[in-house]
């Protein structure tokens, strides 16, 4: 946290450059003068400095912000709410296998189903013949680089963060064995 000078209620780093006595090892001290009494004037000054001088209840012109708020997103759910989109057990197993992460609790399953239900909103939007947009830079032609060897030969860097290596190889357990996924039952 920024150190505050207790007596003069000034942020420490301002004092650094304004108070000559704050050189050297001053950073370890908590205040900028020998007078350790907090001065009420200083406090009042700082309060005044920080007080909003604008009256937020008064406006001069008719506001352009609509008076009646529109309803946009309703996330309040009754406690016994269950998402309507149910991921069947076969799909869940497929997702786990494609994702290689486990879905380990009822809460996680609910979160997943909730996500899918949330996305249903998108499905319902009428899009007509609009083209999909995958990047906002679609009209910036892709820049290319010349065919020169400018990288590589950094074997140490490449292997540095691997937990297991063997004679400059990365090491993995045997491949080509599909992961077994079990049917989930959360109660």
């Amino acid at each position, binding site marked *: *946290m*920024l*150190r505050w000078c207790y007596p003069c209620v000034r*942020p420490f*780093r*301002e004092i*650094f*450059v*304004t108070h000559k006595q704050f050189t050297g090892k001053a*950073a370890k001290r908590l205040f900028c003068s020998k007078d350790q009494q907090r001065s009420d004037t200083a406090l009042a000054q700082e*309060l005044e400095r*920080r007080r909003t*001088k*604008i009256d*937020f209840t*008064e406006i*001069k*012109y008719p506001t*352009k*912000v*609509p008076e*009646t*708020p*529109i309803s*946009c*997103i309703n*996330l309040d759910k009754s406690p016994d709410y269950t998402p309507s989109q149910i*991921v069947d057990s076969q799909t869940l197993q497929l*997702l786990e296998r*494609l*994702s*290689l*992460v*486990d879905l*380990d*609790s009822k809460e*996680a399953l609910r*979160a997943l189903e*909730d*996500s899918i239900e*949330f*996305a249903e909103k998108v499905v319902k939007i009428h*899009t007509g013949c*609009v*083209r999909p*947009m995958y990047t906002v*830079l679609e009209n*910036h032609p892709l*820049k290319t*680089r010349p065919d020169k060897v400018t990288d590589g030969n950094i074997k140490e*860097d*490449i292997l*540095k*963060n*691997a937990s297991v290596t063997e004679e400059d190889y990365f090491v*993995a357990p*045997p*491949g080509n*064995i599909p*992961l077994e996924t079990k049917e989930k039952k959360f109660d």
Partner: protein
Amino acid sequence: MNRTFSGGIRQLGASFASGAASPTQITEHALQAAKVASHLNAFIRLTPEVALSSSNESSFRYQRRGQRSPLEGVPIAVKDNYCTKDIPTTCASKMLEKFVPTYNATVVDRLIHAGAVLLGKTNMDEFSMGSGSVESFFGPVKNVWSKDFENDNWRITGGSSGGSAVAVASGICFAAIGSDTGGSVRIPASYCGVVGLKPTYGLISRHGLIPLANSMDCPGVLANNVDDCVSVLNAISGPDDCDSTTIKEPYPKVELPFLDQINVEGIRVGIPEQCSCEGLMPEVRDTWVKIADILEDNGAQVRRVSMPNILNSIYVYSVLNQCEVASNMARYDGVEYGHRASTAASTEELYAKSRSEGFNIVVKTRILAGNYFLLKRNYDNYYIRAMKVRRMIFNDFKQVFEKDGIDVLLTPTTLTDAPLYREFVTKSNRDQCALNDLFTTPANLAGIPAVSIPIRLSSNCLPISLQLMGNTLQENLLLRVAKWIESRVDFQGVAPPEDLRRMMEIMISAAEKKTS
């Protein structure tokens, strides 16, 4: 007492140059301040050795009048999803707990080149997946404006760049780098009372930024004021050969005139009517109304505009984000880097175990949901459709900026002031994001620049901020208006000490009583 020092980077540089202070001094102070503030959990790692040695170099350069840029000697914190050479970069995840990059992100390289001092790596939501900075493997970040730091009674910082926001708001450093995919810079900036800038997509290189969703990820700047934001922006922006999505055309540095030369006369300000929605805290609405009024009073043309698709942004964002996440996270398998499960009988089992142990539940759920949307049978229905609605949102912006002639759009940044942690965590991660990201995701989907600026304190003595959005590459105009508003509201960018905050609260509630 010399009152001209407002804590800005420019003034700091002047004091360095004059010899009134030295980078080493300021860095030592910042490191100590960070230690004192450790209860806020803003940093995953401080980098005192790097910081002190580079600040010594900076001090030396100042002595020889050889400073490299306005950022020379300025302590800056970087979110822990930017790769830093020989400094662990974790993304706040167990998966990357021991990952030590062998290269610097372009943003980090440019900061170092500009002479900035890297103070440390800031805390965040794991892999930036969150909007509260509560989903970190290293524990949640606490908002410096909280009145109580115990028993879950503290305020969240917003996320996912919460650590960066707090590092600035608490005065530890002068600026911090965050990343903004759906509002991750602007939301914590808003809740912590600092300026948060998400520039045009492609203006700053993403090389070395560990991605959340590549098509929307955007490096961003958090600072105490608009001028400081500009100083950092100018140091890090511009094309990069390592990132094919940086805009190739040379872009002139942002230069803001002095305050007395800025006026808003003739500036066309749009108020998107869809942003006046349910759930908007009355005080936030009042703030929005008042600032629009002040702008109009000073000659700006304030107009209501309709952007029928922008409130669909959160749904589109949710689908696109989870799909890109499912894809981006596929590389974490424990073989080349990252957490590796101790035993496994097959490659797939190793991957599954490492990933299950290394990721938190939010990451896992997004991977599963993303893969669901990407399944061949679902792809057209979800992903393609989301990309179509993305274009509709993009076209809404094109309409207001190019056809309606709007210069900037003014909206709230968030619906409310910073929520209490205790209340925030009762909602699911998805709902947290939907609520927090409501006004911020449209700018990411359209790739346009947006800035959150703190305006005032709420009756809870918490910052309330507004967002300005501009057309692509219109940072200059956007930040000029932001600076003008900033000067009008005179919000002090560093949170005051606790006793002062308590007094301010009393003052605010007294004022409230008087008006009601």
